[in-house]
């Protein structure tokens, strides 16, 4: 199947938002999606964007059942390791189910790695849900190491009420 991987344009945000929701449904967390294409347009295409995005596009004749030509995306941003410096963090990688098995996921990942290399990044990190075996297997074939397993890292979050509490209250030591 013919496909093209390119940098996302502002006009792509509606389709990217659609695919973000599809991925969230798959991750059984669709109720957690709070932003729409408007925030993506604002945050990804301003002077100092908070993320970058690649999209996978198929020709009109191969469009999806519902008529979409954007069939996959990779959303990433730059992070910093105090040990090694510049890094890339792959936040989302998604290919619509009917377009899988055609090398699109691999193509998106390679392109992210290439972008990272150009910016002198020394590593790429991402998070995967423990039950997502296809994804864990895919990343393992690319040489990824599970740092939660090997080094015991846990992912922590403060948001909503707990973030406000941090701002307002004295800690209970």
């Amino acid at each position: 199947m013919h496909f093209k991987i390119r940098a996302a344009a502002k006009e792509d945000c509606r389709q990217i938002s659609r695919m973000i929701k599809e991925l969230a449904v798959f991750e059984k967390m669709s109720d957690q999606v709070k932003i729409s294409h408007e925030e993506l347009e604002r945050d990804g295409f301003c002077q100092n964007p908070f993320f970058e995005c690649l999209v996978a596009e198929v020709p009109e004749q191969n469009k999806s059942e519902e008529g979409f030509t954007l069939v996959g995306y990779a959303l990433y941003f730059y992070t910093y390791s105090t040990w090694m410096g510049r890094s890339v963090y792959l936040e989302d990688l998604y290919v619509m189910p009917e377009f899988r098995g055609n090398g699109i996921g691999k193509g998106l990942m390679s392109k992210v790695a290439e972008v990272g290399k150009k910016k002198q990044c020394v590593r790429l990190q991402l998070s995967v849900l423990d039950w997502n075996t296809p994804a864990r297997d895919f990343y393992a074939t690319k040489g990824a190491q599970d740092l939660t397993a090997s080094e015991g890292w846990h992912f922590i979050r403060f948001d909503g009420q707990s973030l406000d509490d941090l701002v307002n209250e004295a800690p209970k030591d």
Partner: protein
Amino acid sequence: MASFILRKAEPNDVSDILRLIKELAKFEQMEEKVVLSEKDLLEDGFGDHPFYHCLVAEVPKEQSSEGHTVIAFAMYYFTYDPWIGKLLYLEDFYVMQDFRGLGIGSQILKVLSETAVKTCCSGMHFLVAENNTKSIEFYKRRGAADLSSEEGWRLFEIEKEELLKMT
């Protein structure tokens, strides 16, 4: 009781920041993994498009430890969650042993959370090693959620050699 100030790091602070980075890495038993130099920190933190932001805590000379007045730091940057938008990501957070229990860590976390709210971030994320029970308790006391336990997220990494194979 130590008196201290919190301020934004300046280019002159890079040697102190590197010193503290190495101390924290030593505590995490990963000292040999620090390959970053002062030059990298300068270029990456104080250029046109910084890769990170840094807060430092400073004590007066008379309270200094071995001549060091910069005794704590927090390094952070902004990340993006496609579900909720901007986030503040706390990369490193460290207070020198002699200066713990004085409220410096709490104050740093408070300033970071204020920054997160001011810059319209939906939350603050970071990683903790599961054997670092003191830190986990510190964060849990303040209402943090452990997403690895609660939602099953696992952190993966692909190192440079493998990345190059993909390009």
